């Protein structure tokens, strides 16, 4: 059966890159004795696919990967995995995917983020009340550096919501393969809009959730699954 696992990654673990997190989970599957399925062939590997790589330095409360499981139930898998997690890694939920649900990677539509100053820093942009005006603009054009050249790109249709609340920026932005935007790009543009040059590396990003689109609505990736 296809199983979706949601996890959190925070604290010192934010310094571990995506490939190493994948290797980490492969080891954890064995250490936790989870009955994960392997591919066939001379060097079989675990059937496991991650939703979206998280950059080094970013924390998350809503990361996902899908696995093929031979046997076991949600509670067992969650408990066993949590028992072997290192500090800064946590399994939040384990659900079974009904037939026909696309894999985590292919179905991403949006992601929500919280962005706030790191320890020892403060908000550089004191005008937090201009967000409405910022969003009322006709377009929010940035120049993106691609491998070959620079292209103009309008952020606006890809910002689904953006606000400032409890000392942090909160946003829901496009995370689909076609229109994916970076949360810091929004912060940077908003700073410019307010006339402030923001030092982006003073900000901590936390990804809260990854969404897919289902019948015109955004749904968290875990909500497509069911308990088992």
């Amino acid at each position: 059966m296809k199983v979706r696992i949601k996890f959190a990654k925070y604290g010192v673990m934010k310094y571990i890159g995506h490939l190493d997190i994948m290797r980490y989970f492969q080891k954890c599957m064995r250490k936790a004795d989870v009955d994960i399925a392997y591919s066939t062939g001379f060097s079989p590997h675990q059937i496991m696919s991650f939703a979206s790589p998280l950059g080094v330095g970013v924390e998350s409360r809503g990361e996902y990967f899908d696995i093929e499981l031979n046997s076991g139930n949600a509670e067992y898998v969650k408990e066993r995995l949590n028992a072997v997690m290192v500090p800064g890694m946590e399994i939040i939920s384990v659900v079974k995917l009904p037939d026909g649900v696309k894999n985590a990677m292919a179905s991403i539509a949006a992601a929500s983020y919280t962005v706030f100053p790191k320890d020892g820093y403060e908000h550089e942009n004191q005008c937090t009340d201009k967000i409405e005006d910022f969003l009322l603009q006709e377009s929010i054009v940035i120049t993106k550096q691609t491998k070959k050249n620079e292209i103009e790109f309008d952020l606006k249709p890809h910002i689904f919501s953006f606000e400032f609340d409890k000392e942090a920026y909160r946003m829901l932005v496009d995370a689909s393969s076609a229109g994916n935007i970076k949360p810091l790009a929004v912060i940077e543009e908003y700073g410019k809009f307010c006339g402030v040059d923001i030092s982006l590396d003073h900000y901590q990003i936390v990804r809260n959730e990854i969404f897919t689109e289902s019948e015109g609505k955004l749904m968290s990736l875990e909500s497509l699954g069911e308990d088992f």
Partner: protein
Amino acid sequence: MSIKLALSDEILMKVEKPARYIGNEINSVVKDKDSVDIRFAMCFPDVYEIGMSHIGIQILYDMFNKYDDVWCERVYSPWVDLDKIMREQDIALFGLESQEPIKNFDFLGITLQYEMCYTNILQVLDLAKIPLMSKDRAEEDPIVIGGGPCSYNPEPIADFFDIFYIGEGETKYRELLDIYKEHKKNKTSRMDFLVEAAKLGGMYVPCLYETSYKQDGTIESFEPIRDDIPRSISKEVVIDMKSADYPVTPVVPFIKCTQDRAVLEIQRGCIRGCRFCQAGQLYRPVRERDVDDLKKKAMEILANTGHEEISLSSLSSSDYSKLEELTDYLIEECSKKYVNISLPSLRIDNYALDAFGKVQDVKKSSLTFAPEAGSQRMRNVINKGLTEEDILNGSKMAFERGWNKVKLYFMLGLPGETKEDIEGIGDLCDKIARVYFETVPKEKRTGGPVQITASTSFFIPKPFTAFQWAPMNTKEDFLEKAYITRTSIINQLNQKRIKYNWHEADVSVMEGVFARGDRRIAPVILEAYKRGCMYDAWNEYYHNDVWLQTFKDLGVDIDFYTTRSRELDEIFPWDFLSCGVSKEWLKKEWLRSKEAEVTPNCKLKCNGCGAAIYGTGICTGDGR
């Protein structure tokens, strides 16, 4: 998070692989610092990925942390990018687990696995803000203790250490820690503690000994400066290897390391007695671990780490008497768990090829031989019991089973080596190629034609070997010999099928100096470090010009340590140490080597090397 990182977020986001510095790995041990009496920092003076791959550290880490009163942490050389930042921002080197400065620890243990790490020892001390010279350390500084193979000639780095522990870590540390606790309780001086430590077996406290030199620069005498200190120090070994502990919860790194697998040490020591090999002498006598215990431990390690590969470790795995039983068991159990097995250092025979065929993709893997010398005469000189027939037969069997890649390792610069001996390398490679073409019919050469890779390294005479008397070749000799090797390969019929790799000669010369150096080398190492040398084991950071200039400026003659012929009765800097094997026996072996006389291995016959004084292992007939 309860642990506060020693490095700021800004730094960690800037350096390459921040995972090197944050600890937190699976099975790393975090204790309450107020609940322990002794803080021990265990250091491998190279980058994290190298240091984490070393099984010796894992053994000691496990042992120390099983003691309730000790918290042992790991520390590695910060990579050059962080090194620079730490110096600029005045950040003190820290233990990975607690992230606290190691300057406040009780001990800093440094493992000495190769000579070219010597400047990294100074880097670690410097970044830790511990005075580089033992004599400059204050009461509250950690006790700096060295161990590992290079501690068998500790003299070139003696000035930097308070103690060297000669032998296997498992045996004497508990006693040392107990003496230390006593000393801490009674508030006796650092020197008092060192004197007490020096009376303990295997402990060498350099500041309690003095060397005098003859006119010609060789050693006149080496004596303790106090009557109550032993004149010679014998290595400590684990007597009962069968019940010796082995870590079943090794630390599992996040980032890919050199050794990204579970490692099972099956035996210690080697029966072979190759005359160039230091490890073969240092770890005598060979002692096997219990096969049933190994099976159990293998499964426990896999369960505790989640590793997807397990490797057997020993100097010569084929000599382990229960190898087949162990390998068959592992192949059976591991295939159920999708765990791979790697079987290094196996002699190529029917059994090994069968086992390889089960654990690896024959098409992708290569067959490895280490003849070490090109001619049979030379292989007799070095006592390498591998014949041309073994190699050709082994290759033939492998080719029949589908292998088509062969790797061969040789040394250049061996004592008494002639042009013919070197040219034997090309001949041997060609013979293997011919065996391939004779064995494998055209229609079966599917994986592409045979590929033979010959690699040569330069021979460096090491202490406690039969060749400790041997003059080392000059750099020019080495390069000339690499040229002869290359020519001998190019002249072969099948030269297109043979690839040749050779080592840098400069760094080999320097390694030769450190290997047989004495206390007069320490100032050179210190000065070279001050001039920026570090990570000398890394080609891209090795600055030969700086080293040569430093030797010149300090008036230390490199040739004295490398190319000079040594008299049979010369006192060597390491003579006050004993690894069990007697100097008399080594002398006999040195003389036999000149006659190209072969000495049988310990399994065939005891040759009375001296290691029998430990009364264990093969010397008592175990595993014979």
